[in-house]
Every structure is written in structure tokens, then in C-alpha cells.
């Protein structure tokens, strides 16, 4: 019946499947709680659905939330974002329309912290180069003096000690790493003790002492190009920079310079600006760089957990219940 209102609240997603759509395997779960429509279906029958869409599930930055879309969804109550980063959303605009925003911070932490450690170890021990050497048609023998950097007992400086940063610290502690951290707010003493982390009120102190510097901040106007020329020069020449936050937290041109001239030893980044980088970008040519395709929380299990958390948050808003993952404009 084309004029019937669906029993379940209507949830708009960009698409299902393909390289940017919601994973097919997640659809049965979503359909338990929502009447699911894709952007294509919405555009084809705007009249039917416009007033019914109560929630949008933004999956890896799609659909793009702009004024036009918001105007066309008069009864939209909540936008749920997969993952934790919200920098691609105009929070002020969305809030003007009285729409609430939620993300999924719990679901992403472990996988993203694991990615941070994976990149730290891969960069320190030169795993990408090592594999290339091991499989190269030109390799005749393995050189004995082919060396990496020791991780156990080294100093890790964590910039951004939120949920993810703290999980990184928990993992690093098991490698007997000395942990320094810099954060907007200092953590409680007992939290610091558990992971053996020392607070550096000044980011300079952290940069000067760290063998590995890991960026785990949210992208905001304050953290934009947080790591630039000055910061690179403060770092040890043997230091390795790991970025699992957002590409824009680093001044990329300065990083290229720093890597080319030995101001720092190497870098491993799961995030760049843009993603992917243009194919002629200098970062792609450097031997002392590892780049991964923003795989921070891209595991089967995390995808389920992200969607579970998003659904919980959406339902909480729709039923007027309190929830913890609301994101407010600054």
C-alpha cells in the first residue's frame, strides 16, 4: 500500500554495498529496527518518504549532509555517524534544523588503537621494506646489518589521550614503553598510574623526548596543522611519527620536507589529506613512509559494533531517552 506509513521508523542511507555503501551483511540487522531506504529510492519517491525519514545513517561520510538535504527532510530527528570523527559534518548547520547528531566512539576504539600499534611496529621494524626485500626477484641473500628500531623500552608520546589514545597507552605499556602524553585535559592520577603515563603540559616536552609520536586527536580548528615545521624540528632525528587521527592534523608539505631531509626518521599514516593522495604526491615516493588506506576501524567485527552503537543511539533519540554519544556543535 503506497500510502501506508511504515511500521518502523524510516532510516535513510546513501547506498547498500559497493565501495562506499553500507555493508550488505549489516542490512538484516538494520531492518530489524528501521525501514531502510537508500538515497536513490528517496530521490525517486521524495513525496512518499520526505516526511517519514526520521534518521540518517552516515556511512563513511555519505550521504553528504547539506542544507538542501536537511530542508527536504522536515521530520528528521537524528543523524548517526559511523565512526567517531565528525569533521566532515557541519554541526552548526545541522543543529540549526533541530536535528541531533550521534557518533559511535565506543565501537571504534579497540580497532583504531590496534591500528596505531600495528603502524608503530611496522614502521619501527620496517615491515613493508622487509617484505619487499624478502620477495623481490633481485634478492640473493639477506643482509645481516639490515636493522630497525627497538620498540620495547622506547618512549612513546601520545598526543590526544581520549578513549583511543588511552587504549594505545594500555597496549604500549605491555612493551615496557615509557609513555608520555599531551591532552587538552589531564587524565586522573589513577588513570595515569594504570598505564604508567606521564603528562606533558607542553607539547614541546613530549616531542623532544619521544622515539615514537602518535597522533590521536580529534580534528578541530585548534588541532589543524598541529604538527608543523616547529614541531618536526623539536622531534628527535631518530623519531617516527604515526598518524591515526586526520590528515589535516599534520602540515603535509612540512612532513615531506622533514622526511626527505632526515629531520625525523620515518612516518606511518593511516590518514592523509586528501584520501587517497594524488598519485604524484611526494609522500608516495618516500621509502621511509608507510601509508594505509584509512583502515583504522575497518574490521568485520568493528563494523557490526559501529552499526549496533549507531542503532542504539538513534533509537534512544527517537524514544526521548538519554544517550552518551551525542555530539554538540562547539
Amino acid at each position: 500500500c503506497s500510502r501506508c506509513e511504515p511500521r518502523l521508523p524510516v532510516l535513510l542511507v546513501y547506498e547498500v554495498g559497493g565501495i562506499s555503501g553500507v555493508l550488505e551483511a549489516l542490512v538484516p540487522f538494520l531492518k530489524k529496527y528501521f525501514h531502510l531506504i537508500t538515497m536513490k529510492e528517496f530521490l525517486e519517491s521524495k513525496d512518499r518518504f520526505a516526511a517519514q525519514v526520521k534518521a540518517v545513517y552516515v556511512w563513511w561520510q555519505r550521504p553528504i549532509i547539506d542544507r538542501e538535504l536537511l530542508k527536504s527532510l522536515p521530520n528528521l530527528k537524528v543523524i548517526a555517524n559511523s565512526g567517531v570523527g565528525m569533521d566532515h559534518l557541519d554541526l552548526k548547520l545541522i543543529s540549526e534544523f533541530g536535528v541531533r547528531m550521534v557518533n559511535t566512539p565506543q565501537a571504534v576504539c579497540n580497532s583504531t588503537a590496534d591500528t596505531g600499534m600495528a603502524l608503530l611496529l611496522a614502521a619501527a621494524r620496517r615491515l613493508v621494506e622487509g617484505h619487499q626485500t624478502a620477495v623481490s626477484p633481485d634478492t640473493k641473500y639477506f643482509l645481516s646489518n639490515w636493522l630497525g628500531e627497538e620498540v620495547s623500552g622506547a618512549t612513546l608520546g601520545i598526543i590526544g589521550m581520549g578513549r583511543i589514545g588511552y587504549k594505545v597507552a594500555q597496549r604500549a605499556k605491555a612493551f615496557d614503553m615509557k609513555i608520555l602524553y599531551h591532552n587538552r585535559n589531564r587524565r586522573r592520577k589513577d588513570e595515569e598510574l594504570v598505564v604508567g603515563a606521564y603528562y606533558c603540559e607542553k607539547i614541546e616536552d613530549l616531542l623532544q623526548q619521544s622515539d615514537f609520536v602518535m597522533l590521536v586527536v580529534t580534528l578541530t580548528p585548534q588541532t589543524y596543522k598541529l604538527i608543523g615545521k616547529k614541531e618536526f624540528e623539536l622531534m628527535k632525528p631518530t623519531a617516527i611519527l604515526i598518524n591515526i587521527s586526520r590528515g589535516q592534523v599534520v602540515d603535509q608539505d612540512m612532513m615531506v620536507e622533514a622526511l626527505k631531509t632526515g629531520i625525523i626518521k620515518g612516518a606511518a599514516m593511516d590518514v592523509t589529506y586528501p584520501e587517497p593522495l594524488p598519485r604524484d604526491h611526494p609522500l608516495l615516493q618516500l621509502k621511509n613512509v608507510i601509508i594505509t588506506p584509512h583502515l583504522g576501524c575497518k574490521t568485520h567485527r568493528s563494523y557490526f559494533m559501529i552499526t549496533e552503537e549507531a542503532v542504539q543511539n538513534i533509537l534512544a533519540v527517537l524514544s526521548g531517552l538519554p544517550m552518551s554519544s551525542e555530539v554538540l556543535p562547539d
Partner: protein
Amino acid sequence: MEEQDHPYTLVTAIGGADGVYEDHVEFLQKNLKLITMKEFLENKRDLHLKIKAIFVWSLKPVINRELLQSLPNLKVIANSGVGIDHLDLRLISSFGVKVANTPFAVSNPTADLGIGLMLASARRIIEGHQMAVSPDTKHFSAAWLGEDVTGATLGIIGMGTIGYKIAQRAKAFEMNILYHNRNRRNGAEEQAVGAVYCEKMEDLLRQSDFVMLAVNLTPQTCKLIGKKELELMKPTAILINICRGQVIDQDALVNALQNGIIKSAALDVTYPEPLPRDHALLQLENVIITPHIGSATSKIRRLMMKNMVESILAGVRGLPVPNEVHG
């Protein structure tokens, strides 16, 4: 006496592909009188009675009967690393010569590498990098996924010093840890890392998402992981080898990887090293291979070298030898 203070020590070479490191030479020469193989061969008559020690670095020089016979005053052989499967301990002992290795120095970096390989294979770091830098890449797919390490089950085969350090690290990733070992560890040790003993290796293989090999190579562990063991593993399981290539039946591994019997493998060690360039393992997408870099950090190689010097100095003086390997 001068000779005891600066014992004549045979090394393969200084510098080059498998010689002692140039930046270690200063320390070495403070303590030892280094004689390269070339110098020895050119001057056997003068040197053969003087050499009291051999410094085996990257498996060289090769210790055989001929060499042992030509060095009647040899007291001690110090070997870099913990594996001594390339040394005929019985033969060496029959000449009254002591052997020392460097088990503790290598334990942290090897454990680190084991965890690094586990993370790299689970999260497809090498493949990911290749995609991120490939000239053909136009966008990153949201559907390209790896597997979680946090919360997964790790089965450690070989719970010696290195295996235990792996367990300590894995615990911080909230992994469920199973282990199989010749001897069971004590209750306190198991509890400290939350490790559950599997008396039967089969039980470990069936339940693990990641299987990590950290045993010594002995006649008992040669081809420990073969067709049967691979078939017991989950089809989603990842095998990591940081001990010796011969612990795995390599042909069975190739077959298992080609046919989805296990998901993937990460190998720091193979047999031989390097593999022939046409070997099937080099062609597989679901394999990471690293060039035997378990202990390859500047800090640790220097520590290994110093440990070996200590062992040599003690051995030459007739004192108890630190890190002595007993046959």
C-alpha cells in the same frame, strides 16, 4: 697475561654482508684480538695455536670438524642469537669447547616482531600500503576489511622466554591466550598473562584465530606444523612463524594457503633463507615474509655483541660462561 686479556678470536670478516658490524669493531677490539677468516687462512701456521675463541655472527663462520681440528686451543664459541640448530653441539663438545648464545638479548625484539607480524597480517598492513601508494588507486573502498586482534584467540606454540613475552604483549590487546609447551608453566606465570595450557596441540589449533610458533628447532619440532595441523586450524586462522622455517612443512603450507585451508601466514623465517625466487610462497597474496629480522635492531645487536664478548672472556679464562648452552 696479554693473551687472556685480548683473546685471539676468529670472525668471518669485518663489515660486508655477514661480517661483524663496523660500528661494533671499536668495542670488540678493546676486548678481543680479532682474526678474520682470510687472515687465518693466509697465516694458519702462526695463528692456529693462538685462537682461543670463535665469534659466530649471522651463522658464520661455519663450525665443522676440519675447523675444530685446526684450532687445538679453542676454548669457546659464542653465537649471535638464540637458535643453535646450525651448530653440532655434540661434535663441538667432543673437542672440549664450550658454546654460548644470546637468549635474553633477542627475546624482546623477537616478541615485538611476532606481535608486529600478527597485527600486520590481521589488518593487512602490507597490502594496504601497496594499495595506498599504487598508481592505479583512485579511491579507498569502505568494504576493504581486516580482522580484529583485540578480543581474538592467540595460540602460542612454545612458551619459553620469547613465547611468554608474546603472551604479555597479547594480554594488553585483551586476547584470549592458549599455549602449548613441552612443560607447563606454573600457575602464577599462567595467571599473570591469562594463558590457558593446552596439553594437546590439537586443542590449541582448533580454537585459535592466530597461531604463533616460538619453539626451538629440534628433531621433535621439525615439521611440527604439517598437513594435519593446518587442517585442524580454522579456515579464518593466521599462522605466524618467528622461530625456524623447518618447524613448518613448507609444501603443506603452500597448499593450505592456496586452498583456503588457513587464511594467511606471516613468516620471519623460511627454509632456506632467502627462498628461491621462483618459490610458490613468494607468489601468494596472503603471505607476508620478512628477512629474518627477529633481533634486528641496532640496540639489541649491540647488546648481543657485548654478551658474546662476555662469554668469550669468561670461557677463555676458564670461568663459568654466561649464556652457556649445554648439549
